[in-house]
């Protein structure tokens, strides 16, 4: 109930109370004790608030509902509920093969050392496209979808490694020469153009 956001807001309120005190009575900082208090109120706590705020926003930006809150992403969110196992994201989402709360991030995050930073910078450029420029009708991933995103979970998994089709092309898959999603194998991905003609699954049923 009183989660990380609640704790952060409590720290922010405490910082604000102290900052208001120094705003109204800046002369009190003549004494050594008050100087230390000013250092805590105007340096330590605000720095903590920036760090805490950044951390909370980073965590929130990984949530599925955050991604699909952009108008252009709404049909991609819908595609997670398509009642058809051929739809790759829907099959992963509905069967909890990926964390449901962070479904988009699980399959679209860059898992390299500076990956999260690159993702956030890309996210800002997408916000720019959404609100300042015009989003394209069809959204494409820059550089295509990398097999490494799939192999992060599937590499080493028995049903993936033992599959004779996968075995025959394993080197091409691991070197990203043959795409998992665009080589005719698992090619029904979000397919948002068909959202008006598909049946949806409801988890409440």
């Amino acid at each position: 109930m009183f989660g990380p956001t609640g704790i952060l807001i409590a720290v922010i309120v405490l910082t604000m109370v102290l900052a208001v005190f120094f705003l109204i009575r800046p002369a009190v900082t003549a004494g050594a004790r008050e100087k230390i208090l000013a250092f805590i109120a105007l340096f330590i706590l605000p720095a903590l608030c920036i760090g805490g705020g950044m951390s909370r926003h980073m965590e929130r930006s990984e949530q599925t509902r955050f991604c699909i809150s952009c108008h252009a992403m709404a049909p991609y969110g819908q595609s997670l509920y398509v009642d058809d196992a051929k739809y790759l994201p829907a099959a992963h989402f509905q069967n909890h093969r990926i964390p449901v709360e962070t479904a988009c991030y699980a399959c679209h995050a860059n898992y390299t050392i500076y990956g999260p930073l690159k993702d956030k910078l890309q996210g800002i450029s997408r916000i720019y496209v959404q609100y300042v420029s015009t989003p394209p009708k069809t959204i494409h991933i820059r550089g295509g979808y990398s097999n490494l995103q799939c192999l992060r979970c599937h590499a080493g998994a028995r049903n993936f490694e033992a599959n004779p089709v996968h075995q025959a092309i394993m080197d091409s898959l691991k070197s990203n020469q043959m795409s998992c999603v665009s080589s005719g194998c698992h090619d029904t991905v979000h397919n948002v153009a068909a959202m008006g003609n598909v049946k949806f699954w409801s988890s409440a049923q």
Partner: protein
Amino acid sequence: MKLRAIGIQQFFRVSSGLIILGLLVEIVSLLWFHPLAFVLFAFVGASLIGLGILVYLASLVFAVSPPAGNRG
């Protein structure tokens, strides 16, 4: 010296004001679940708080407290 003493108080007022504004923006951004909330926090809230911290640090470097005899 008196002018410098007023100077440090001005520094503190500006610093506190910027930090309060930045924190208010941060609270709004935390309560608003939207991609723009991140932009609001990163480009407005964090910048205001950061500027407030810088003004406070500048007060430590550039402003001089009044001598002990003048302290009230």
